């Protein structure tokens, strides 16, 4: 079964059909998706700005990220679940949409960016935790994260238009 067949099957699954045909389900799920976005990416933004040395400079990086990460992850979990549901309801359209593919690409790159940071600089955070301007690669990770998430948002929004 090809990826296209899989998308077609998902779109016509019980859940996909139910969400697409309901007057209320799609708007409610999408509204929740957007509000969870502000929780997840909004808190991430504060962490990334600290990492970039642009915000809360007097506060240790680890304090800012440790206290906000649970909220960011909760928001991300809601976004992920609602996102899957939205995808089910229009998997055929998503399959053919360059914007959806870009969104997935940006998401993967954002994950990669975070993973690289966690496995490298984050391991040695004790040595730079209190620096007002963190090391170059930490700043780079913060700024890259913000750009990639902006890409995720823009591509996601553009998906809804029929260009």
């Amino acid at each position: 079964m090809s990826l296209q067949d899989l998308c077609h099957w998902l779109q016509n699954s019980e859940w996909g059909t139910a969400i697409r045909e309901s007057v209320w389900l799609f708007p409610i799920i999408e509204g929740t998706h957007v509000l969870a976005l502000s929780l997840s990416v909004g808190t991430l933004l504060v962490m990334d700005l600290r990492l970039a040395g642009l915000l809360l400079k007097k506060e240790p990086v680890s304090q800012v990220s440790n206290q906000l990460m649970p909220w960011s992850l909760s928001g991300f979990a809601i976004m992920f679940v609602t996102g899957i549901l939205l995808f089910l309801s229009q998997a055929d359209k998503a399959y053919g949409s360059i914007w959806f593919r870009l969104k997935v690409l940006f998401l993967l790159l954002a994950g990669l960016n975070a993973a690289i940071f966690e496995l490298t600089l984050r391991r040695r955070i004790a040595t730079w935790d209190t620096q007002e301007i963190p090391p170059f690669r930490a700043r780079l990770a913060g700024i890259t994260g913000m750009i990639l998430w902006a890409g995720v948002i823009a591509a996601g929004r553009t998906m809804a238009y029929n260009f």
Partner: protein
Amino acid sequence: MSLRPFFLWADNTAVSAAIRDSRVLFPIIETIHLFALTVLFGTVIVLNLRLMGVGLRKQSLGTVSRALAPLTFGSLAVMLLSGFALFLSEAMKCYENPPFFFKMTMLFFAIAFHWSVIRWLVRKNGTASRIVSVLAAAVSLTLWFSVGAGGRAIGFY
């Protein structure tokens, strides 16, 4: 007093026509609106988490508020400007759109609440009782999320 003349005027400005005539202007402005929403709601959420004592607890309310206020204020300005441009492009659609009026009402209360009660609590810098702080944060989040939900509903109505 009918608001119809105002909406008719808004629907007929040069900006309205320019946005309507372009295929890409509306999506671009809306994406900017959504970027600003992420920053505005993000900073409001973090401030309210601090107020409730469940996020950035190790930092004082004053520290968190001082750091975030320029972002909150700046993104609100971008939201109002981009929102006004979107409104101009479809003012008569908004006129017949209940979610639009719901959104504007909630927006008024959200801003008023933020610049009265929330600011008052920030000035007290943590000396207000926990219950008052938690309640105020809950009201603030409910108001802002109502603005967001109302805005999303405009497009679906």
